[in-house]
């Protein structure tokens, strides 16, 4: 059992439910969230206790809704927080950090959420871990199910490129390629989740799954020397990551690990081919109008984001902002990060870097302010987007041709 979880609570009407595999309030159909006894956590936890914990998300066990003694742990989390002097120089930021979550075991931040969901699924007695995914989530589910000795079933659109899903197939997942569009896959998975006693990580496990994202807030504050950043730039898909980082920061205050109020301004980054949260926020609306995604940033392409409204509330109450980047800026952001800091990120990271650039240019971030940009996935997953970087110097094997080719390069490339 998770010692500090009191119940599941509806985020809309606050009705309470027992800790079971539920995700929707029966009364108002609002989403459920785990609730904690913060006073009890405050008595149990401390900076020292956390510092003595494992170098994974499980050092924050007191703020996670599962029994950490039986964690399904493939060492997700405690990824590098890097001072980005080179990128900062380009952007005009003297205090820029990158949270490099692309180096998780299955190469994205999804390992954090799935580690929590898989642990809870086993607590509930499920034998099958499942999800619908076009990439990162499938890989994290496959990896954690393998570790847990569970069966995994991954649903995906039939027209998805095979390469996207190899990272799930390698772990022995059953892949179900559903013919039909995105909407049909979406609807089918919701129906299957209602009909089968499986742990769908982001459906019936969602109240637990989403809590794993908090660790991206807790970890950054700890790695900064128990300090909150002034700005956090977060990629937005469902909106859960941004709202949970904000929740994590605030929970650190609630349990006495940090002094409040939290000063961090939360900023959303989306690509314009799918930017319902950014568009709603910039229009001054909480209401998110669903869109049909058409973006190169596939890992952020959620047209009807479940937690969009909660992301907007976090952005609003923190005094943050939002930036939608042009589609061509996605690859530009990926290249800029790789060329300045040696980090190869996937498209979501390109969105974050270009949004950071845009926010800085419009004066939303000050030169001296402590800024953290979240890089959530690895570039090896979306190499096709930046294929145009490959143009080798073709020579025959002699020094003369090599030197001629070298002198033909621009001075900066020699």
């Amino acid at each position, binding site marked *: 059992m998770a010692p500090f979880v009191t119940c599941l609570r509806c985020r*809309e009407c606050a009705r309470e439910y027992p800790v079971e595999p539920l995700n929707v309030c029966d009364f108002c*159909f609002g989403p459920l969230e785990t609730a904690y006894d913060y006073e009890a956590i405050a008595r149990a936890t401390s900076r020292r206790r956390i510092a003595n914990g494992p170098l994974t998300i499980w050092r924050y066990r007191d703020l996670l809704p599962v029994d950490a003694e039986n964690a399904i742990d493939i060492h997700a989390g405690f990824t590098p927080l890097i001072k980005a002097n080179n990128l900062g120089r380009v952007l005009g930021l003297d205090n820029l950090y990158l949270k490099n979550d692309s180096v998780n075991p299955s190469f994205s931040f999804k390992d954090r959420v799935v580690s929590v969901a898989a642990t809870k699924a086993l607590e509930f007695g499920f034998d099958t871990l499942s999800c619908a*995914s076009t990439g990162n*989530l499938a890989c994290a589910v496959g990896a954690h199910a393998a570790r847990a000795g569970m069966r995994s079933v991954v649903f995906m*659109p039939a027209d998805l490129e095979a390469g996207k899903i190899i990272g799930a197939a390698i772990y022995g997942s059953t892949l179900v390629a559903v013919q039909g569009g995105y909407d049909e896959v979406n609807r089918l*998975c919701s129906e299957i989740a209602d009909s089968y006693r499986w742990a769908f990580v*982001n459906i019936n496990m969602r109240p637990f799954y989403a809590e794993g994202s908090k660790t991206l807030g807790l970890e950054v504050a700890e790695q900064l020397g128990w300090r909150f950043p002034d700005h956090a730039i977060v990629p937005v898909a469902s909106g859960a990551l941004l709202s949970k980082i904000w929740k994590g920061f605030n929970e650190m205050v609630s349990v006495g690990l940090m002094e409040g109020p939290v000063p961090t301004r939360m900023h959303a980054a989306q690509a314009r081919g799918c930017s319902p949260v950014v568009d709603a926020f910039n229009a001054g609306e909480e*209401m998110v109008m669903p869109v049909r995604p058409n973006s190169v940033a596939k890992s952020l392409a959620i*047209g009807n*984001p479940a937690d969009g409204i909660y992301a907007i509330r976090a952005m609003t109450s923190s005094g943050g902002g939002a930036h939608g980047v042009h589609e061509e800026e996605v690859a530009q952001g990926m290249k800029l990060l790789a060329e300045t800091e040696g980090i190869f990120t996937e498209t979501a990271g390109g969105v974050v870097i270009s949004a950071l650039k845009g926010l800085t240019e419009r004066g939303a971030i000050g030169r001296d302010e402590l800024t953290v940009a979240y890089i959530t996935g690895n570039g090896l997953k979306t190499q096709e987007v930046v294929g145009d970087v490959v143009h080798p110097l073709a020579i025959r094997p002699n020094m003369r041709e090599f030197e001629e080719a070298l002198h033909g390069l621009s001075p900066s490339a020699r």
Partner: protein
Amino acid sequence: MANQRVKFTFPAALVPQPIIYNLGQRFNLVTNIRRADVREEMGWVILELEGDDQEIRQGVAWVKSVGVRVDPISGDVIEG
């Protein structure tokens, strides 16, 4: 009898239309609204539909055909 929980999102042009009433009448469905936010420029309604399984499917198809977006109440579950 079957039931289905859905979210309807209405563009501005459809906000004044009695679409949920017509859905109930034309397809013999009980429509039970649980949450909503309807404004001049757009609106959404989260509701439960109860009735014959086939009529629910036909009714949802009709709602889509008139221009309302229909989604599962959990939002999009396909993640990257």
